[in-house]
């Protein structure tokens, strides 16, 4: 036993990779089938949602492309530019997504650590993780563009070969951002500390936003230009998006090939396809055969790293100062002391939850991105003063803004509020058995998430009404509507979170992906569609000059909205409170 003669030679790279693919494939398959085994209803909900999403997206793209194509003289040009722009932006998103997923998969993944001590070469390990992160990062992209490409094909009236070509092109296209993303991940891991990376990322993001802001700054046009110099104006608009037709971008090769094939220019389409394939093969081969050797160095660096600022004396002094612990009250505690009417135990729970939220970068980072984008959009409304003087557009946009804001809210409540109860995890007894009691815990979480959400949603809707120059009655109407929706969706998320808890999982993303989270998202979505639909149909204000508001339909619509809100918010919340009263630890 235990001597060298008894030891077989290490597995070859090819066999090791096949073994990893097989075992992970089996894992993935069982994860997929276990969803169906656990709940038929969940499978049905997910399948319906995916199917519905595909269909709606297809119809939207079809209508949009058809509309664009209908512009006399410039329809094809607009459609072409949209195609190039869409793929260019998606390429950047894929690159970013691959960088994040690649980094996590290579350096923050337990399987990677496990395999690093197993007889698997770093090359093989990198190859497996490269395949895994490509699939994880790209499936949503494929899901997003498939309805768009089908709609494009139908609008252009192409034959079946178009779909064969686009499938091949997309399969090749997703490899390039994955190659660059994984290479960036390995390089960043090798040379950059986490804090340095965060600072660099924030600076990079600020510079990017500033650059975009400068580049895409709205231009004021006079009436003469709008009425008589349409082509000149169009030319200026097109020049802003010309970057998407930079010939060295992989998205350019994909878009050109797709467009040329649809135009019947097969030789040209094949040329761009070959360019794409050649690049995929070249860079793919580099990643496959070369990047793995740097992976081990990078992995060792990640796990060997001191603080990047440790090289500076001021930082070391500051750390030393911090080490002399003076038992202070935290910043949050001092802030919440300003609210003396909150009971100390409730305050302690709120401070704990706020701290945990703040210290999880992904939590507030995603919130910031979601509402930041909406804020940028609403703030930009002020540039459309001329168009928004038209009551029709004012009316439409005000309801669309309510729709967009509530959709963001639904994402927020499902992603962050729903898992709140589950995140207490196995520690739920700590708060549950304290004098505070579990019922009070649930009510506090509801109050806290509702107040937090209200600050954001009321702010956004108020800004929207302000830039749309709505009178105070309409402003009050929309503010009231979003306030009711905020309370309802928070109650729904907290309620379903308690009714469908998952105490095994620490990752909020995984908690949300279960039945309860999916159910919460679907119910929120249906509630938003119904509510905004009811409010828009029964609007108290006229949409056009020759239509007057009917008091009966207004009453029914607003009454229906309030009733639906009460039902959807109150019922799950009440059931949740009842469940917490009989909760078994």
């Amino acid at each position, binding site marked *: 036993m*235990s001597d060298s003669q008894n030891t077989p030679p290490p597995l070859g790279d090819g066999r090791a990779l096949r073994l990893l693919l097989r075992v992970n494939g089996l894992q993935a398959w069982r994860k997929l089938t276990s969803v169906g085994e656990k709940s038929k209803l969940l499978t049905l909900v997910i399948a319906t949602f995916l199917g519905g999403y595909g269909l709606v997206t297809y119809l939207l793209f079809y209508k949009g492309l058809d509309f664009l194509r209908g512009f006399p003289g410039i329809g094809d040009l607009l459609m072409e530019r949209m195609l190039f722009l869409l793929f260019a932006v998606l390429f950047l998103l894929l690159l970013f997504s691959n960088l994040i997923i690649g980094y996590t998969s290579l350096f923050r993944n337990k399987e990677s650590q496990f395999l690093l001590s197993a007889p698997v070469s770093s090359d093989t390990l990198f190859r497996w993780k490269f395949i895994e992160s490509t699939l994880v990062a790209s499936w949503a992209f494929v899901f997003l563009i498939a309805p768009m490409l089908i709609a494009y094909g139908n609008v252009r009236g192409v034959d079946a070969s178009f779909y064969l070509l686009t499938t091949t092109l997309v399969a090749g296209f997703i490899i390039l951002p994955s190659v660059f993303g994984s290479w960036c991940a390995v390089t960043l891991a090798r040379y950059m500390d986490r804090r340095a990376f965060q600072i660099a990322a924030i600076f990079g993001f600020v510079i990017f936003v500033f650059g975009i802001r400068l580049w895409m700054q709205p231009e004021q046009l006079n009436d003469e230009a709008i009425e008589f110099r349409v082509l000149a104006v169009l030319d200026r608009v097109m020049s802003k998006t010309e970057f998407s037709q930079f010939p060295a971008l992989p998205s350019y090769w994909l878009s050109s090939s797709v467009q040329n094939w649809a135009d019947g220019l097969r030789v040209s389409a094949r040329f761009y396809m070959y360019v794409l394939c050649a690049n995929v093969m070249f860079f793919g081969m580099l990643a496959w055969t070369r990047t793995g050797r740097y992976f081990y*160095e990078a992995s060792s660096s990640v796990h060997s790293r001191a603080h990047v600022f440790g090289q500076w004396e001021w930082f070391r002094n500051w750390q030393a100062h911090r080490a002399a612990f003076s038992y202070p009250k935290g910043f949050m505690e001092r802030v919440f002391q300003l609210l003396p009417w909150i009971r100390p135990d409730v305050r302690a729970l709120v401070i704990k939850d706020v701290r945990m939220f703040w210290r999880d970068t992904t939590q507030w980072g995603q919130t910031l991105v979601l509402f930041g984008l909406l804020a940028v959009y609403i703030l930009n409304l002020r540039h459309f003063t001329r168009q928004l003087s038209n009551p029709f557009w004012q009316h439409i946009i005000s309801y669309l803004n309510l729709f967009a804001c509530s959709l963001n809210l639904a994402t927020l409540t499902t992603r962050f509020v729903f898992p709140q109860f589950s995140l207490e995890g196995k520690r739920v007894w700590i708060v549950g058995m304290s004098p505070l009691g579990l019922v009070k815990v649930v009510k506090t979480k509801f109050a806290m998430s509702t107040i937090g959400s209200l600050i954001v949603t009321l702010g956004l809707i108020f800004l929207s009404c302000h830039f749309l120059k709505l009178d105070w009655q309409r402003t009050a109407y929309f503010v009231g509507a979003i306030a009711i929706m905020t309370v309802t969706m928070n109650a729904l998320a907290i309620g379903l979170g308690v009714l469908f808890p998952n105490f095994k999982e620490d990752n909020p993303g995984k908690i949300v992906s279960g039945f309860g989270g999916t159910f919460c998202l679907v119910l929120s979505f249906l509630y938003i569609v119904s509510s905004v639909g009811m409010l828009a149909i029964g609007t108290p204000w006229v949409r056009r000059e020759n239509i007057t508001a009917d008091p009966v339909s207004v009453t029914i619509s607003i009454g229906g909205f309030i009733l639906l809100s009460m039902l959807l918010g109150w019922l799950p919340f009440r059931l949740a409170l009842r469940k917490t009263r009989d909760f078994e630890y």
Partner: protein
Amino acid sequence: MIELKNLTKRFGDLTAVNNVSLTVPKGEFFCVLGPNAAGKTTTIKMITGLIKPTEGSVNIAGFDVQSEPLQVRQRMSYVPDFPFLYEKLTPWEFMRFIGQLFNLSEERVQSASRELIPRFNLEPFLRKPIEGLSHGTRQRVAIAAALMHEPEVFVIDEPMVGLDPFHARVVKEILKERSVAGMTVFMSTHQLSVAEQVADRIGIINHGRFVAIGTADELRHWSGNDSLLEDSFLAITREEANITAERMPAPATTP
């Protein structure tokens, strides 16, 4: 069998492992004790090749960990305190996977499984997904799988976490038997009684250096405490500078 030569690991200003040299010969059961943040896990990570040493080298079964990693990994097993297992596989599938990963023949997979599975009492769990198993059962699966290829060197971090007394005894017995048969064991633990029961030699690490290496009796003797190993450990680690200068010989690198 395990040879650390002037091993040093620095994290910026912090020296986690400081110029450690140690030889653990073939078939020895070596236990590392030490307070939290003493450098135990960093040493293990360098032995297993998870991180590179800042200075020095590690040799396992005659192969350098950095220049011949595959030869080393083929001859070694590492079980961390919270081992990674594929959650959706069953223990039987996981063990087969490990056997195949180490390039074992079907006959060896079968014979090793038939020996190890009953000893670790894993029969009732063989068809159940790992995700549903308790921490202790997962730990047993991980240890059994790690022993399948009959490693020459076995590195294990806190093996008794989550194990009930019966299975803790089983693990100790099997590791001891294998060690007697020639497998070198390098175990890190906080449980002094475990170290005392199974170890041929015990190394006490503090502030990145081995401050004492010897048998349990030798450690007791050096610390001037003839009763409990716990007292010796506390005496040695409390202020090692006070002790080392006067009463304790320089740590030996070999027995």
